[in-house]
């Protein structure tokens, strides 16, 4: 049994919202509302959900790029959320980030090799020669040619830029890499290359991924466990096989039914579950279950009390009254 590397407990991120004249009382938008999950060493946890579900905000909060309101993020027995200043800077060695948009995540005025080298310059004590060797190795590991080291980001294609981003994330030999929709800005053929590269690197370096995505096909390919988020809450959390074969939460079922299949017979068998309406206003959330107004099987109690995330067997957790 691999040990738990990242243990997030009760993480809440809220943003102040100004409405009206600004003199009224402050209201808050809870982008991430009391979520808990853990990631085991060497495994991949994916967080999926629609736009605005809070998955990216959760990732940013774990990386301390967005201030969390409450909760704990334990990494190697240290609470990342409590670290400040130099201590926090040193922790960044262990947690790196692969960004969504390879076109804006590389500084347009720096050459590829200095982009990859930068984390080493900031966070390691290695000699200049060692750093140069590491950068060369990283270029090879992510499948870039050595002669491309002196080029500027705009001279690369999207997939190559994402490779630079991956090399940069690997430079300090982190334990945890947070991938925030790393392939959603790439075209499908390149997506597969990058995903395979991520998996290869995971095996080689024993990396742990926190993988954020809205693409269930990608998630199925990548993850060991999956957490489904809706309106800032985790509604279902299970290992990959359990979630894909027997989804319990109606929202997850609807999501899975929307994954297109190539197989004709499969397609005929599958019934698309449609979820009508829009997500509720994130500032004035309804009292009960946040999914109740769109849920095909909602009952009276659903709009009265909020369901807890509870274990329904073999670590499969669901937040629904009706399971």
């Amino acid at each position, binding site marked *: 049994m691999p040990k738990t590397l990242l243990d997030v407990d009760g993480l809440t991120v809220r943003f102040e919202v100004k409405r009206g004249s600004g003199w009224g009382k402050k209201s808050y938008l809870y982008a991430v509302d009391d979520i808990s999950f853990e990631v085991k060493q060497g495994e991949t946890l994916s967080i999926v959900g629609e736009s605005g579900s809070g998955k990216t905000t959760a990732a940013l909060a774990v990386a301390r790029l967005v201030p969390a309101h409450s909760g704990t993020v334990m990494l190697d027995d240290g609470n990342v959320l409590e670290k400040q200043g130099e201590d926090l800077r040193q922790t960044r060695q262990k947690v*790196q980030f692969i960004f969504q948009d390879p076109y*804006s*995540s590389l*500084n*347009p005025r720096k050459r590829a090799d200095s982009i990859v080298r930068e*984390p080493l310059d900031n966070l390691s004590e290695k000699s200049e020669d060692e750093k140069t060797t590491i950068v060369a190795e990283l270029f090879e590991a992510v499948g870039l040619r050595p002669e491309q080291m002196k080029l500027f980001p705009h001279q690369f294609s999207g997939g190559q830029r994402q490779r630079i*981003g991956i090399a940069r994330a690997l430079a300090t030999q982190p334990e945890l890499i947070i991938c925030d929709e790393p392939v959603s800005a790439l075209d499908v053929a390149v997506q597969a290359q990058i995903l395979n590269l991520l998996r290869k690197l995971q095996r080689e370096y024993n990396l742990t991924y926190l993988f954020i995505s809205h693409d269930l096909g990608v998630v199925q390919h990548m993850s060991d466990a999956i957490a489904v988020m809706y309106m800032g809450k985790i509604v279902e959390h299970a290992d990959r096989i359990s979630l894909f074969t027997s989804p319990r939460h109606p929202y997850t079922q609807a999501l899975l039914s929307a994954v297109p299949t190539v197989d004709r017979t499969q397609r005929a068998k599958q019934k698309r579950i449609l979820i009508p309406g829009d997500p509720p206003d994130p500032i004035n959330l309804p009292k009960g279950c946040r999914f109740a107004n769109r849920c095909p099987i909602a009952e009276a109690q659903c709009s009265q009390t909020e369901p807890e995330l509870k274990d329904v067997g073999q670590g499969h957790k669901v937040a629904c009254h009706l399971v």
Partner: protein
Amino acid sequence: MIAFIKRYEGLWLFTRSPAAIIAAIVAFFSIFGAIFAPLIASVNPYDLASFSLMDGLLPPVWEDYGNPKFLLGTDDQGRDMVSSILYGARLSLIIGISAMTIATVLGVGLGLAAGYYGGRFDMIVMRIADIQLALPAILTALLIDGIARGILPTEVQQDLRVAVLTLAIALSLWVNFARTARASTFVQMQKEYVQAAIIMGQRPIRVMFVHILPNILGPLLVIMTVDLASAILLEATLSFLGIGLPADSPSLGTLIRIGMQFMLSGEWWILWIPTVFLVALVISINILGDFLRDVFNPRLR
């Protein structure tokens, strides 16, 4: 590479813009003349022994009684106008460029930090900037000049005239830089490379100056040129009003003030020649600034 293409494209655009070419030539000769004033000028207008009252009020050479020794004539003290203007432009440019530099450093530093940290710090800096904007530049300069006169002992006041003037001008110009830097920083903060830099363990100062600053230089360069022109004008205005530089070390503004006395008495050149020179210098710097703005902003082409 982008920078290279931009520069190349900028040069190409330059050859197609006659206004920019003329402006560049005017600015080049003014600045060249100002830098090498001691070599070019026939007399030193600061040195009372180098000119004679006997040569006073001579008209330019093409007028009757013109003296070929004094191409553009002399003023009432017998100072050669060419030399006065070169030395005056030298002083004006020194003050203008140093004021602009101080304003740039102060404004860009504060603007970057305000954009980066946001929140309360941003609010304080921007409110101070608003207050600064509400005070006319001349009033700010008068205020600082008054304070300097009040607190500095009389002996050093003369020596520090240039410094006080520079500071006064810089303080009334920094707001432009702060606002532009802040707004551009906000735009850059949305880009993921800034977050990437933080994740990579960059210290805030380095994120600001190594990552963000190079990416917001374009608009700042434009403001630098335009504000250089404003700084020169402001210095001329203050000197014209008599709170700038004294008559024995004349800047362009001081020369114009001296010329005012002769405006209606027939010795037109004492007023007009420095004025035309100042206007030409400021207009050409402004045209170059506009040109730079067009180069950096393809939509305006």
